[in-house]
């Protein structure tokens, strides 16, 4: 199938051609106006779909499938506009498609990535037209065949239907369709009232492969002639190799080579691999692991050898005793504080956490003289291509990237450091290499969610109205060592100044302090929203309590009348207070906010706007005398615009809730002597089923608005709703994450 090479012009929306097997290929092209950060400029190329004579439809899915469900939901959008029979649809994962033949690289299939909950909004913008053009073709072909006007032909479930009742399967119309010329302009889209696929629950398309063990992940790639490599990496941030002895490693049966893999220089941007290390290359994983265990290495400890979690805490305290970078300053907070009837103030701490996707990092890379092939679980295939280009010098057009199903992403695989490593090892050994990371490698060498201390101050007047609000944060920005970010822009990854309660409080101030730390940082599911929603929504509860107000009533009063504000950060361009109010009211009603609960129990809630979606949680928990937590009820609501796949949205909200709770309860990465201390799931204890709620009820708002994504909205409000419920249950306010052992201690003191 050579469709990717077909030249397409900006004028052409879709081209069609016959395949060797008699199928019809549709190669739509589309124009996108929005620029995508950190990716080649998007451009009109296309995405294919294929209709076979037996009426089966093959739809390519362009974005990586990391468990967020896009391999199901994106094809649903195309199938809907095509009016396909969903049971006849087979979904294929597309490889990375970038056309380098023009002056600037152009996407072949549209943007390809998994991050920021963007797949669905981007697909809504272009993929509907793909399906619609294909349907136009089918209708026109049927009209021609019947000698009837196209208006007299309708479609349903992969059939064209004549007004007189005659029917033809799409598969029977291929030959005629291939002779038709497509209109140069967009064709009309379906009336949503006629949707038969969008908005109806559809199961994960790969489920059959998953439950039988046939689904192929990166780790399952076995290419002929490939060696397996594992690496021993320097545990010190920016450390290196002082000396090493690989004689014993080389003597291990099955070991083929031992290769030093240099990491980035101190302070250099993290564009390729993450740390210096030594790779052991062997016939299979077990031999490579045995070889690695036999390596003897002395490391240099680098410039951060004195770094520890305790020292970082002290650094934050010191920073917060000074004035930092003011990134938003509405009204006059100092004056509001002067005249306040009451001031509430609290400090919170949010730890580093690791992504820990269950499939450890891995990559297959074969570097040859002037080309390279990558098969890997990635969230940014174009980034993988750039990384290989960087470390091998092979031009990007000569580097192919195939995407497997991905065993979890959570932002970890937005970085392609492991692909760069595999490329370096392949280049050094002249062999196709499958690089395997162990769990220890993964926990020790991550781009961790940033750590920070937050100070919040609210002022209230004598009517208990919130008149002033300050959010001061000292954090280790995730923009650390990013080539494209200047120091003065580092705060932008940490604080979103248009977030609630901006514009809702007249005197509003946001301040940032940069924490110096050598630990690599990056995007962790719903990046800064997880930290900020936790502190803001916890603090709102504190303000309500301190001023004798109901926590729901205070939130509703602050949101005020329904209206829209500009929202300049990712997830904008608008933030709608009414949509946030709705999800809040829905969960409050569902949980029975305000009712009395048995002793030892409490109800908490929280709401937040994340990347274009509005979500809220309410939960009823019981705090046991020993500090254990029982979840009696957990409810969440989501407004992500028009729901594409309710089953998928539900899964994302349930999974996001559990991710949020598991992380808040258990998880922290700590640093000692310039190294990460956690090694495996014994000291980074993801929650088991027993610790988690038995059920998570999901309310999906039946919205008509353009859809947002939904992969990240379920997580930010889970932790503050839990903290608020714990406070309601036992009067203990937990301001430091993770909650873990604190609750037992706090209860003992209380």
């Amino acid at each position, binding site marked *: 199938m050579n469709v990717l090479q077909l030249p397409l012009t900006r004028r052409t929306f879709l081209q069609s051609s016959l395949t060797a097997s008699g199928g019809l290929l549709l190669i739509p092209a589309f124009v996108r106006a929005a620029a995508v950060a950190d990716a080649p400029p998007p451009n009109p190329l296309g995405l294919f779909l294929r209709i076979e004579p037996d009426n089966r439809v093959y739809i390519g899915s362009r974005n990586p*499938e*990391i*468990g*967020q*469900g896009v391999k199901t939901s994106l094809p649903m959008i195309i199938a809907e506009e095509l009016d396909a029979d969903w049971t006849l649809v087979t979904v294929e994962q597309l490889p990375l498609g970038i056309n380098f033949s023009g002056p600037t690289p152009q996407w072949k299939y549209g943007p390809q990535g998994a991050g920021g909950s963007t797949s669905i909004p981007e697909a809504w913008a272009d993929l509907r037209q793909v399906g619609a053009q294909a349907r136009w073709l089918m209708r026109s072909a049927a009209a021609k065949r019947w000698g009837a006007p196209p208006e007299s032909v309708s479609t349903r479930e992969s059939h064209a239907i004549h007004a007189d009742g005659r029917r033809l399967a799409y598969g029977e119309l291929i030959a005629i369709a291939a002779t038709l010329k497509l209109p140069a302009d967009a064709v009309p889209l379906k009336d949503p009232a006629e949707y038969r696929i969008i908005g109806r*629950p559809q*199961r*994960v398309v*790969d*489920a*059959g492969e*998953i*439950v*039988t*063990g*046939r689904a*192929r*992940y990166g*780790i*399952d790639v*076995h290419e002929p002639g490939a060696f*397996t490599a594992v690496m021993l990496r320097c545990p010190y941030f920016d450390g290196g190799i002082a000396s090493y002895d690989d004689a014993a490693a080389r003597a291990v*049966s099955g070991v083929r080579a031992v290769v030093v893999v240099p990491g980035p220089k101190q302070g250099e941007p993290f564009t390729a691999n993450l740390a210096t290390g030594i790779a052991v290359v062997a016939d*299979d*994983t*077990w031999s490579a692991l045995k070889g690695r265990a036999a390596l003897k290495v002395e490391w240099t400890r680098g410039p951060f050898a004195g770094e520890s979690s305790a020292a970082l805490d002290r650094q934050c305290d010191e920073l917060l005793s000074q004035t930092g970078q003011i990134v938003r300053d509405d009204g006059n907070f100092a004056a509001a504080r002067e005249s306040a009837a009451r001031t509430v103030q609290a400090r919170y701490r949010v730890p580093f956490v690791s992504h*820990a*996707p*269950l*499939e*450890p990092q891995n990559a297959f890379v074969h570097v040859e003289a002037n080309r390279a092939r990558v098969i890997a679980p990635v969230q940014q295939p174009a980034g993988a291509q750039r990384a290989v280009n960087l470390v091998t010098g092979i031009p990007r057009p000569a580097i192919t990237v195939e995407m497997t*199903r*991905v*065993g*979890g*992403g*959570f932002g970890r695989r937005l970085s392609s450091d492991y692909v760069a490593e595999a490329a370096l090892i392949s280049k050094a050994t002249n062999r196709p290499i499958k690089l*395997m990371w*162990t*769990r220890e490698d993964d926990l020790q060498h991550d781009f961790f969610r940033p750590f920070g201390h937050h100070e919040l101050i609210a002022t209230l007047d004598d009517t208990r109205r919130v008149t002033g609000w300050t959010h001061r944060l000292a954090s280790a920005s995730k923009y650390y060592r990013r080539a494209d970010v200047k120091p003065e822009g580092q705060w932008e990854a940490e604080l979103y100044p248009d977030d609630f309660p901006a514009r809702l409080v007249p005197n509003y101030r946001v301040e940032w302090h940069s924490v110096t730390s050598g630990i690599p940082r990056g995007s962790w599911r719903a990046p800064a929203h997880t930290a900020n929603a936790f502190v803001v929504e916890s603090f709102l509860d504190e303000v309500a309590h301190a001023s004798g107000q109901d926590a729901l009533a205070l939130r509703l009063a602050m949101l005020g009348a329904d209206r829209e504000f500009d929202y300049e950060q990712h997830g904008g361009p608008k933030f709608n207070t009414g949509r946030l109010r709705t999800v809040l009211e829905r969960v409050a009603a569902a949980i029975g906010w305000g009712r009395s609960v048995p002793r030892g129990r409490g109800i908490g809630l929280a709401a937040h706007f994340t990347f274009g979606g509005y979500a809220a949680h309410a939960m009823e928990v019981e705090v046991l005398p020993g500090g254990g937590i029982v979840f009696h009820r957990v409810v969440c609501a989501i407004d992500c615009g028009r729901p594409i796949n309710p*089953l998928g949205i539900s*899964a*994302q909200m*349930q*999974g996001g*809730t*559990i*991710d949020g709770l598991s992380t808040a309860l258990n998880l922290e990465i700590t640093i000692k002597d310039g190294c990460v201390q956690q090694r*495996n*799931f*014994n000291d980074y204890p*993801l929650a*088991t*089923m*027993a610790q*988690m*709620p*038995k*059920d*998570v009820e999901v309310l999906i708002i039946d919205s008509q608005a353009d859809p947002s994504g939904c992969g990240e909205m379920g997580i930010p409000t889970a932790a503050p709703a839990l903290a608020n419920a714990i406070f309601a249950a036992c009067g203990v306010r937990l301001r430091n994450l993770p909650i873990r052992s604190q609750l037992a201690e706090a209860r003992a003191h209380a």
Partner: protein
Amino acid sequence: MNTRFIVNGVERDFAGDSEMPLLWYLRDHARLTGTKFGCGSGICGACTVLVEGKAQRSCMLPVAAVAGRSVTTIEGLAGPELHPVQQAWLEEDVAQCGYCQAGQILAAVALLKRNPEPGPDDVESITNLCRCGTYVRIRRAIARAAREMRR
């Protein structure tokens, strides 16, 4: 000395290192990649297989330990039709990334064999981790499979 055992009904004869964890034998040598690697320390359960019908973490089990025994991996669970647990997994749309699910399914199969009517606490004896947080639907799927299997 070769190690002999049965995987999914097929006799296997392994001449390599008998200390190799069964996980790596299955994945790298038998090319049965449905059994997943998650932690290599017996914690996550991604590598769960059935040994004589009992759920075992194959990353902790040297090949030598299964000599003469019968191993079932996810690839060997279904007969001509899916196992009722697999079917229940489809009905409840359990999977997100899907990576842990082979292990979860086999753990559930072993549980239902031991205890055909598990209550919520019995289900919680399964300690397999799911990073995507599919626990709620795993519970539902086990309950559904238990109902189906009692029929």
